[in-house]
C-alpha cells in the first residue's frame, strides 16, 4: 500500500492573511504578495496579523488574487505567452462596473500590470466613442467625482 503521508516540506510556506472590506478572509502565498506592492510594503510591520484591505470587496480581491496567481504561473513558464494573453483578454471581458472596480482596486493595491491592463481596456473602449457617449460612462464620471471629493 502506498504511503499516503505527505512529504514534509523543508520549510513551511509562509502565508499572509488578507481580509476584504466585507470580511472575507484570503490566505495568500508569497508569490501573490509580491505582486500586491502596496501590501508588500506593510509586511514587515504587520507580522502574523491579518491585513485588512478596507477599500476592496471580497469579490474584487478574489479576482485580483487570481490574476496574480495566473501571472506568477506565467513567470514560472507554466503558461505560454499566447495563453496568458488570451486569459487576460477574457479576464477584462466584463461589464463596465466590474472593470472599473478592478481598475481602482489594482491602482490602490499597486498591481502595476493589472492596472495597465484595465486602463488600456478602458481607453480602447473610449477611442470608439463620441464625446457624448463618453460623457454617459457613469463609472468614468464617478472616478472624476471621487477624485474631486477626496480633497
Amino acid at each position, binding site marked *: 500500500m502506498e504511503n499516503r503521508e505527505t512529504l514534509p516540506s523543508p520549510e513551511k510556506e509562509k502565508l499572509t492573511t488578507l481580509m476584504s472590506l466585507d470580511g472575507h478572509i484570503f490566505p495568500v502565498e508569497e508569490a501573490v504578495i509580491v505582486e500586491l506592492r502596496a501590501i508588500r510594503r506593510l509586511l514587515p510591520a504587520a507580522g502574523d496579523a491579518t491585513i485588512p484591505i478596507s477599500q476592496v470587496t471580497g469579490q474584487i480581491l478574489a479576482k485580483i488574487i487570481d490574476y496574480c496567481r495566473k501571472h506568477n504561473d506565467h513567470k514560472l513558464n507554466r503558461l505560454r505567452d499566447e495563453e496568458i494573453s488570451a486569459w487576460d483578454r477574457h479576464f477584462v471581458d466584463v461589464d463596465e462596473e466590474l472593470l472599473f472596480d478592478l*481598475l481602482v482596486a489594482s491602482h490602490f493595491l499597486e498591481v502595476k500590470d493589472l492596472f495597465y491592463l484595465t486602463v488600456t481596456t478602458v*481607453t480602447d473602449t*473610449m477611442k470608439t466613442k463620441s*464625446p457624448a457617449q463618453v*460623457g454617459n460612462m457613469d463609472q468614468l464620471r464617478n*472616478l*472624476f467625482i471621487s*477624485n*474631486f471629493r477626496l480633497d
Partner: protein
Amino acid sequence: MKKMKGHWFANDDIPMNILSRLSTKTLHLFKSVSKDWLNLISDRSFISLQLKRSEPVSGFYFQEVFQWTDDEYVDQCISYINVGVERVNVWCNVLDFLPDNVVVLSLNNGLLCCRTSFPNSHPMIYVCNPLNKQWRSLMWPNNIAKDCSIALAFDPFRDPIDVSTDFKLVAVSRIEEGYKQILVEEDEEEEEEEEYSFFFDIYSSKTRSWRRSKECCKCNHELTKNRGVLADGILYWLVGHGYGILMFDLQNELSWLIPGPLPSAEFTCTPEMCIGESQDKLCYVIISEHGMQLWILEDQFAPKWDLKFHASLDELEGENIAVLYNLEEKIRSRLSRDVIPWMDPLSFKDGVVLLRVSAAVYLYEFGTRRRMKKLCDVSTLGPKAMFSPIVVPYTMSLVPVEQA
C-alpha cells in the same frame, strides 16, 4: 482649478493616468465631454504629462508661394494634407483663425510659425497651435529683411510647458560681406567674387526681444527648401542646392556648415533632396540616379552620415509599377536645375516622406510598407504647386499658446 491643483496632479492620479494614454486627437475631441474634462485636458501639467515624443505625423501643411516681383508676393491658400486617416483629405483655409493672410515658416511639436504675407503695412509673425486655434503675435523686427527665413525652435521635452510655453525664433539673414579676388586660370584675369555670410537673430519668448547673435557663418550658397528643421536643440537648413547643411546650435550659439552625405561630383544628373527630423536626429532624403536613399546624421562634428535605407530605381519601380513607370529614364533626363524634377521629395518626418511624382503627391513610409500611397493631385493644392512649395510636417499637440 487652482484650489484643486495640489490634488489633481499627483502622479498617480487615476483620471490623468487614463486620459494621458489617449491620442492627442481623441483628447481634443473629448474636451466637449464635460467641464471637468475640459479643465483637465487644458491644464498645463496634464498636457506636459501627455506630450509624446512618438506623436505620429498627422499631416503636412502645403503652401505655394509665387513671387511676382521683388516687392510683391501673391500667396496662395494654405492646404493641409491629412495623412493619419484611411481616407485622405485636403483641407483649405486651415489657418483662417489668424487675423491675416499668412505664409508658413516653420513647425515643431504642434506649434506653427508664420508671417503675414506681403504687402502689409504691419508685418507680423504668428506662433500658433492649429489644434486649439490659440495664437500669439509679435512684430516683424525692423532690422531683418522681409523675405528672411525664420525658424521656430520649440521643444517641450527640453523646455517643459508646465508654467509657460517658451520658444525661440531664429532669423537667418544672408549678408554680403565684401569681395574676394579670385584668379580665373585660362585668362589669368582677376575676378571679384562676392562673399556672403549668414547672420542669426534670435527671439526669445521669455525676454520678448530680438538680439543678433555674435556667431555668423561664412557661406556663399543660398538656403533652399525645408527651412529650419529642429533636432536635439540644433536647427538645420539645406544650402547650396541641397549638397550642404547649415546648422545653428541654439544653446551654445555656434554655427557651421557641413557637407551632405554625397557631393555633387557623385552625380551625372541632378538629384533632388529634402531634410527632416526623426528621433531627434537630422535625416536627409535624396532621389537620384542611385535610387532613393535615407541618410541620418549621427555626428554633426565629424560629420558622420549613416545610410539607413536604400532602394535602387529598379526596386522602386518594381514596388510601384503603375506610378513609377520608366523611372530610371525620367530621373536621368534631369540634367540641370532649371528642369523641374519628375520625382521630388518635399518633406520628411519620423520615417515618412511626402513626395511629388509627376502631377500627384504621395506618401512613402521607409521600412514598413514599401508601396507609395497616393494622397492627392497637385492641382488640388493650387495652380502653382509644382514650383518650390513650402511643405512642413505636422504632429499634433495640446500645448496652449497665450497672447503675449
